[in-house]
């Protein structure tokens, strides 16, 4: 039974309240505008927060806190939101603006790393512009946190998320997960043929030379950073060189990589998990599936997350907003519209993917992913330009 039954107690009370308000206003000959703002708030049904398509049908109702049980959002918020997935996440913010008439968000969008540096420079200069930084990558959050340009989030805002996906000192909290994966063409390969260690791929017959990657993409660089942190520079450099010399095809982004795998141009690729799901949702018959490696960089779960910028005067609003991002509706939205991994345990993963616990990601502090320069040097010396 979905929680959004129109006859839920709260909703019924609202309906009654709104009705009587209109009635009174009508008697007094006044306009509706005199009604208190809270009377105007009505929450859409769960379906409104869901995407559509075969991967979304038949999902169980999400658990977790409903936005109906959170304090109302009121006021104006300046938001720095990372490009890419951020564009899709922002659609949820627009829904919140529709729900709360007195809530308005002014977004600025650029690449997450660019915004992170902007935040740090602004805070250093004593001129912060935004209240909240919503990055699509943990490395950018870590960069801001390492430069002390944050205010810790409240316990309320952090609590719903497992500690693996929060920053030290409550500096940031993950709101959507992005797992590394290996999309493969099911006509070309069976799941068993994809090794469960990313280091074994160069030695796996049939794989090298028929794969694709997008080295200029931020998530790929985080993947290499994770490999470097876990396996060391030499191993990582060798891995890059052997994949590169085997003829791994280069693409501008991982959506293209996933599409090429679906089309059979490539047998397999390196991509964030949601790209393949996006292809799959629009082309259910595509011979495409996802494999995950185990315990290494190939199974890194990176996050998009929110950080409160130092110097904001809207701490309450920021924290309430972050709680909204971790509500059942928001998590269902991110999971079914952008196919991200939910950050709260009571929402099912997208598609029929394993849960994060079943994935076995590597033991790596996401905060360390901001050490990117060494990764770029490594990629450069291996002849793979990012």
């Amino acid at each position, binding site marked *: 039974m979905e929680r959004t039954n129109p006859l839920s107690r709260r909703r019924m009370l609202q309906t009654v309240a709104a009705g009587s308000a209109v009635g009174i206003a009508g008697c007094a000959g006044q306009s509706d505008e005199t009604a208190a703002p809270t009377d105007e708030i009505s929450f859409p049904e769960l379906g409104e927060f869901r995407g559509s398509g075969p991967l979304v049908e038949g999902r169980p109702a999400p658990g977790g806190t409903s936005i109906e049980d959170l304090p109302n959002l009121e006021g104006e918020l300046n938001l720095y939101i990372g490009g890419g997935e*951020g564009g899709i996440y922002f659609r949820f913010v627009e829904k919140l603006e529709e729900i709360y008439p007195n809530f308005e968000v002014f977004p600025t969008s650029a690449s997450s*790393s660019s915004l992170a540096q902007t935040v740090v420079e602004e805070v250093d200069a004593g001129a912060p512009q935004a209240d909240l930084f919503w990055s699509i990558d943990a490395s950018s959050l870590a960069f801001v946190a390492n430069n002390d340009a944050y205010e810790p989030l409240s316990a309320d805002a952090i609590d719903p998320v497992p500690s693996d996906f929060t920053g030290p000192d409550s500096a940031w909290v993950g709101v959507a997960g992005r797992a590394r994966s290996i999309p493969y063409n099911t006509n070309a390969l069976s799941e068993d043929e994809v090794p469960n260690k990313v280091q074994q791929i160069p030695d796996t017959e049939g794989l090298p030379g028929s794969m694709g990657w997008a080295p200029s993409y931020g998530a790929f660089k985080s993947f290499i950073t994770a490999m470097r942190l876990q396996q060391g520079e030499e191993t990582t450099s060798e891995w890059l060189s052997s994949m590169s010399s085997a003829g791994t095809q280069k693409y501008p982004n991982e959506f293209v990589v996933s599409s090429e795998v679906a089309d059979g141009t490539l047998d397999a690729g390196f991509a964030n998990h949601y790209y393949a799901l996006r292809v799959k949702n*629009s082309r259910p018959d595509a011979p495409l599936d996802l494999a995950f490696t185990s315990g290494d960089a190939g199974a890194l779960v990176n996050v998009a997350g929110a950080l409160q910028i130092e110097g904001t005067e809207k701490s309450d609003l920021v924290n309430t907003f972050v709680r909204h991002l971790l509500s059942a509706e928001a998590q269902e939205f991110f999971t079914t519209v952008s196919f991200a991994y939910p950050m709260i345990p009571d929402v099912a993963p997208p598609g029929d993917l394993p849960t994060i616990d079943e994935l076995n990601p590597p033991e790596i502090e996401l905060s360390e992913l901001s050490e990117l320069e060494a990764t*770029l040097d490594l990629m450069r010396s291996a002849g793979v*330009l*990012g």
Partner: protein
Amino acid sequence: MRLRAWVTAVRQRLSRRSSTTRSTEDDEGATALDTGLTLLGAAIAAVLVAPLGWLVVDVTTLGPRAISLTVDPTTLAVLARTVALVGVVTAASVVVGVGLAVLTVQADIPYPRFWTVVAALPLAVPSYLGAFAAVSAFGPRGALTGALAPFGVEFPTIYGFVGAAVVLTLYTYPYVFLTTRASLLSLDVSLVEAARTLNAGRWEAFRRVTLPRIVPGIAAGALLVALYTLSDFGTPNIMRVEVFTQFIYARYNAFARDYAALLSVQLFAVTAVILAIESRIGVDDSAAYESRANRGAVSLDLGWLRYAAVAVPALIGLLALAVPVGIFGMWLFRSGPGYASGALAFSWTYGWHSVLVALLAAAGAILVALPIGLRSAVSDSRLAALADRAPYVGYATPGIVLAIALVSFSLDIAPWVYKTVPLLVFAYVVRFMPQAIGSIRSSRLQVDQQLIEGARTLGRSPLSAFRSITLPLVLPGIATGGALVFLTTMKELPATLILRPLGFDTLVSYIWRVQEAGLYGQAAVPALVLIVVSGLSMAVILAQEGQNDS
């Protein structure tokens, strides 16, 4: 015709060697007004270039590492590829641009005015949108690749160096086209006729008489093409070619701003080399405007070939204009799953914002370019020459680099302008103002000094003479300069993204946002609006040409 004059001015600005041929008023001792203008121009140039100095400050934090990074083999390899791309695009643009200019000015093709507009219009299309459309049309499983496959037409892969060069050429050759046209229109036909009378063949006359006289114009256009290619990020990125700007982006996005700054300084060095080469090619440019009579009337009788010749601009128009418009139109009407529309609704205020900042940038550029351009046209002072040339650094600076420098600069020096429309407009002015200096300077050059002296003799004050004589005569130059700045500002993306005020979206920033969100259908309307508005400013530029030559 102002463009023609603008060409000569660009030329002169870059090679001052021929300045003795210019009539100057300096011999008589500069008036206080003139000195004031020179100093004002120099001050403005200093203000425009100063923020870029912040990059050098960033580089110093690298210490000795800077040297090893500079000579790193990978860095040099990317640099070499970039230079190769600049060379190929520039050469191809010269071939296409000069060919079309000769065709539209001198050949007896049907509807020359129409083909002139078609050949000039690709400049109104941002090259990254062009690249985007090219990939959508001719990429693997592209709209046209699929449509033509049943007929046995197979496209080579569009990605890579060649594809990038083709796309960049398609959208930058109009610089050469416009400047060469201008030179051709100003050509003294009696010289060509004399050569023909002396039994020179058509080709020999072109080579020995026409070509030397239009070389400065070609070089001026080629310079703009080269600097555009050097500073462009979007197109090579979409076409999957690693060039220097992308290298800079990657460092910047890896939190290595000092490294990015170092690479930017290296890019300045390449710019300096290009400017030097250009000024060597530019021979004595006095020839470019020596005559006022018999301009451009050479007629090239192509016979029946005139109809075949039209196929060239037609093909280019098809590729550079019809394909992107068609692709965006298709996105608009297609509603497949990949093109689903979302809640990031388009608002006409984005269009208004774009036009507003572009107008402000054009006005700002004209305001600051006026003292520099007016003064350098008639002065031989080194200070005036420096003020005239220094802003070119801004023109060659990639938008991202300029934006980074301006963020640090404004936060350190003047935090209250940070993320405001004035700072954004300032960035545009720094980047695009040289185009306005050029056209103002050249129109000032064509003002007959005797007219002004006449007015002074009749008792007019210097200011009054300026108002009643000089200003009306330089107005077309102002219009052309303003239109060029407007056009380029409308298309600018990287600096806009970083410097725009909170919640201030323009057409390009909106296109970027929806494209990032995967909502390509949403990009169609703003892209088409952008092309139409930019196209209107092309009309202003071509109208100046028409007015002055008819």
